[in-house]
């Protein structure tokens, strides 16, 4: 549907080269604390290809969000080792905005309020930046309206200031709305399910599945809970403990986590 109205989207998704790859190798990241730098990521290896859905699961404090922010270029985190590439290009050498223009998208756990900037202005500005040209007004308005309708967002939403006074569910819908409109090659969804009631979770999951069905986006779904995996089926599941991946498998691994929790991965240090 939107493929017909937005030729750039189709081109991106089914381009002759087609497949895109985010490759994280040996990534080590630390953060400044009062007691000096603290190592959070201890050598992460993870590859996400177009069309794949990866679930990265782990307990609180394991460093899942740090991984997401580090790939997006959050200034708080310092990369001390390893590489991140998108189709071979050095992501770590790119500014935050360049990473997004290269095709990375991060749906944030805590989206930031931007007072005085309306959602519609924000979306149009972002779309223009990502595409390198302003979207055609008529199709753009239609696309935004359709995407908002799918996510059960009221039209008045577009005139509100970005994330200002949004409920938890509204913030997450707004993140997925952006994912749908910006057509990333690889999307990282950082705890998009946290704080959502089951109805909101379904709407958001439907939104993600819609983007997946309409494009060839690769998804890295970061979550603490298995609940969202009932709605978004992962191809791969990675268990993340203390800054690295300790086990990998298919969707069945998530079922096991559901039954057993993370306890069996606990090391003496964290127990």
């Amino acid at each position, binding site marked *: 549907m939107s493929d017909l109205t937005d030729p750039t989207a189709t081109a991106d998704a089914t381009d002759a080269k087609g497949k895109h790859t985010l490759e994280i190798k040996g990534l080590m990241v630390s953060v400044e604390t009062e007691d000096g730098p603290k190592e959070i990521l201890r050598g992460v290896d993870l590859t996400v290809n177009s069309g794949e859905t990866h679930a990265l699961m782990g307990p609180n404090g394991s460093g899942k969000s740090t991984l997401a922010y580090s790939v*997006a*270029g*959050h*200034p708080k*985190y*310092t*990369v*001390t*080792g390893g590489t991140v590439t998108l189709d071979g290009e050095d*992501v*770590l*050498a*790119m*500014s*935050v*905005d360049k*990473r*997004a*223009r290269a095709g990375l998208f*991060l749906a*944030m756990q805590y*989206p*930031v*309020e*931007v*007072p*005085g*900037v309306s959602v519609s*202005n*924000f979306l149009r*500005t*972002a779309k223009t*930046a*990502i595409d390198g040209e302003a979207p055609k007004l008529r199709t753009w308005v239609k696309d935004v309206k359709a995407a908002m309708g799918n996510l059960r967002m009221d039209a008045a939403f577009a005139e509100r*200031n*970005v994330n200002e006074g949004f409920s938890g569910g509204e913030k997450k819908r707004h993140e997925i709305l*952006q994912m749908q409109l*910006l057509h990333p090659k690889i999307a990282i969804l950082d705890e998009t399910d946290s704080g959502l009631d089951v109805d909101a979770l379904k709407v958001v999951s439907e939104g993600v599945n819609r983007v997946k069905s309409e494009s060839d986006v690769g998804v890295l779904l970061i979550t603490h809970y298995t609940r969202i995996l009932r709605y978004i089926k992962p191809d791969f599941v990675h268990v993340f403990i203390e800054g690295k991946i300790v086990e990998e498998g298919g969707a069945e691994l998530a079922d096991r986590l559901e039954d057993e929790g993370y306890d069996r991965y606990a090391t003496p240090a964290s127990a």
Partner: protein
Amino acid sequence: MSLADTLVDAPVDGAHSHVDPQSASAAGFVPDASRAERTASFDLDAFPVPRGREEEWRFTPVRKLAGLFDIGDQLQPGHLLVQADLPPDVTTATITAAEAQALGILPPQDRAAAVAAAVDDALLLDIPAESEPDTPIRLRLEGTGETVHGHIVIRAGRHSRATVVLEHSGSARYTQLVSVVTGDSADLTVVSSQRWNDDAVHLAQHDALVGRDSTYKHVSVTLGGQVVRINANVRYAGPGGDATLLGVYFADAGQHLEHRSFIDHNTPHCKSRVTYKGALQGESARTVWVGDVLIRKEAEGTDTYELNRNLVLTDGARADSVPNLEIETGEIAGAGHASATGRFDDLQLFYLQSRGIPEDQAKRLVVRGFFADIIRHVPLADLRDEVTAAIEDELAATEYAAPTLNHSGTASKEN
């Protein structure tokens, strides 16, 4: 009893906030015990020529104000070019200082205002009772390089509803008194836009005596001028008054832009809101905001809130922000103030950039958003657009201070 500074919100970034009463007294300033004790008089001799050590002048570069504290040559007074757009109902007249005083205007609160109050060719703008002009009253005041003392009296009759826009441009050394008197249930908006040339000096006191059940809004837009100081003051003539003072300012290198306000809650059940927002860029760009609110013993049921926010865009700029709230009665509906001066919020920039928006554009969005809630109160679309465009122009010239966001990945790769 003074409760000054007890309700200040924590600054976003204390490093650029310069509220320090200790250093002020150490330098020999003598702060008022209460704003109520400040001199207010039509008698010029009641105000000594300021030397810069007085509480109300301590932030102002008084050395640059020569000639503005004396009446000067009364035979050859300077003038601004005045062009007026008047709706049919509204009339103007020239009145003497004595006639102006007889209209019940508020007395000057500093020497510059007393100088302006003494002129015998004050401009009276008369909005008749029950008049609701469809178009705004616009006064274009253009400086031609002269030293000018001017007094504008705006009388808004009962049940009238109108907007007055004062548009200042050109070059002048100008002391100005604007005296507003509103009748019962009037609704008056006064916009004062300062788009002066770089060499202009403008010392102004804009007073309003707000009538019973009246609504008064004053909007300052200060972008141009070398030294601009606008004191916007409110007093209430009866209960039910509602006053809103708004301001946006953008200071570049070499500019001193100062806004002061004094809301004198002298009457029960009145409301006031004071919101000023400023941005600064460039070496020696300087802004001052001093917001005084006095809730007198008799002003029960008062509802007041004042807020000042400053965005420091580059190194070398300085913003002072001083809220003062004095409360003499416990029977109030609400009273608060907030002041914060800081740099860009890194998280906002990260969020915008993570959507592909380049850093400079992200900063422009944030600044535009920062001012948006005030600019939307500017009543005319063309003026709103003009102000927005002027701020965009200012931003286009910005070379931002120490970017903290860009290329963090590159920097970290060195390890």
